[in-house]
């Protein structure tokens, strides 16, 4: 029971780390491409249609030059929620069309704002899903392999359920704190002084966030280098062929190629040793050196042969066929992609619940 809880804890910690990576990637894409202004522009245009009875283009077509310039100078990418304000928009709509129906504008704006926020949030969730699935599929991060590795290796399980889980929790908390502080500081303070303070805070938090991202990158590198968990297996497989005959042929060719390379390297080293022996003046020492070179060559050949036999035995034991490997890796990676797209807060909560359950279970066992 404890081993199962530990496996679950380790697995959750890994999912949390991957979720944080997906979150970082998503925010990078979000900052690079402006998704928000599309939704804002569309909602304002819908409001124009509702209040004036004309489409945006029709309104501008019949408007004066001044109004056209006014509308042309709107940079949607620079505007935020504050633009959907009754004061601003009643002025703006009156400018567009003096007969605009502005009754219940406040209520209408609330509906449009809710629409816009909902649409934007859904797009961002879908973006995280696309990033998560793309990352896990292309890097071939297989949830099944991760689970299997943790479940079968006690030491690995203990490491990931203890120190790694703690690190992941701290990192997730730090990132969540950074994000919420940044949001709060962006929302607040209207006065200049307060705005300046807010800017300074934001800069500070951005530095903190950068440092966290750096930490996180190091952790991820540690995660991938310490234990591979079969990440990228599909790209490392040398003989991934559809038919068994093709695979065997490829393996045979690879083995022959490797054997030839090793033979060449051995021959070269042997020739060097013999050449060094030939330089010796003493005949007895020369013969001794030649004998030593022969023995070394034989020992190397024996070691290489043993290694090749071991590799062959391992490959024979690996009965998975190429299509099976492909399907296994594909489904596993797809599952990981979907799991990590659920979101870091979810995995954080699950990890905390599992950690407390684990401590209770270990106390009961003791």
């Amino acid at each position, binding site marked *: 029971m404890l081993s199962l809880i530990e496996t679950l804890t380790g697995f959750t910690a890994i999912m949390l780390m991957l979720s944080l990576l997906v979150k970082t990637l998503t925010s990078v894409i979000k900052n690079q491409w402006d*998704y928000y202004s*599309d*939704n804002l*522009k*569309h909602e304002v*245009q*819908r409001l124009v*249609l*509702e*209040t*004036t*009875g004309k*489409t*945006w*283009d*029709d309104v501008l077509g019949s408007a004066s030059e001044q109004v056209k310039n006014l509308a042309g100078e709107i940079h949607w990418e620079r505007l935020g929620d504050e633009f959907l304000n009754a004061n601003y928009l009643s002025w703006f709509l009156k400018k567009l069309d003096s007969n605009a*129906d502005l009754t*219940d504008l406040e*209520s*209408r704006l609330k*509906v*449009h704002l*809710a*629409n816009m*926020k*909902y*649409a*934007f*949030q*859904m*797009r961002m*969730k*879908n*973006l995280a*899903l*696309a990033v998560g*699935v*793309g990352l896990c*599929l*292309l890097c071939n991060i297989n949830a099944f392999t991760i689970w299997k590795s943790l479940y079968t290796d006690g030491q690995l399980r203990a490491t990931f359920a203890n120190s790694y889980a703690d690190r992941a929790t701290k990192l997730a908390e730090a990132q969540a704190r950074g994000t919420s502080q940044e949001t709060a500081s962006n929302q607040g303070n209207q006065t200049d002084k307060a705005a300046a303070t807010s800017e300074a805070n934001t800069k500070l938090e951005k530095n903190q966030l950068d440092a966290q991202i750096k930490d996180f990158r190091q952790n991820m590198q540690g995660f991938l280098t310490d234990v591979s968990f079969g990440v990228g297996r*599909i*790209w490392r*497989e040398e*003989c*991934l*062929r*559809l038919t068994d005959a093709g695979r065997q042929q490829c393996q045979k060719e690879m083995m022959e190629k490797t054997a030839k390379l090793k033979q060449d390297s051995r021959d070269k080293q042997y020739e060097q040793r013999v050449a060094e022996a030939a330089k010796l003046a003493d005949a007895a020492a020369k013969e001794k050196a030649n004998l030593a070179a022969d023995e070394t060559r034989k020992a190397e050949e024996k070691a290489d042969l043993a290694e090749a036999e071991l590799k062959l035995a391992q490959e024979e034991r690996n009965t998975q066929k*190429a*299509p099976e490997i*492909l399907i296994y*890796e*594909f489904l596993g*990676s*797809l599952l990981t992609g979907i799991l990590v797209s659920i979101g870091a807060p979810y995995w954080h909560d699950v990890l905390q619940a599992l950690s407390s359950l684990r401590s209770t279970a270990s106390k009961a066992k003791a």
Partner: protein
Amino acid sequence: MNEDETKKLRIKRGLGFALAAILVVIVILWVAPSVGIREGGKISLSRMQLLYGLVSTVIAVAIYIWGVGKWSRFEPPKNSAVSLSPKASNPAQTPATRSGQPVQPNAGAPAQTAGTPAAPKGGS
């Protein structure tokens, strides 16, 4: 937007696509030698690895287009004027289908008449 303008827009898009295709070929030819693609060279990936990579990329791109891009319910139509204009001749037809774009239930508010606030979609 009238039919002529729509036609012009389509021609513009077609030309853009053709130009992009030509650019892709030029860029690939230019980049190829530096990434080890040459005549008589061999791609180090097997067919199955290529298939896996291709399917993975297609899935990721399809999810993106479905969830965020053009096929998304939450992506506002690019040509808002067409999708928003109420036409008395055929009120049952949605604006999105009129403009030749896929139907987007949230974005266009097709059945909405002027002066009526948009129906709330809910929120989170």
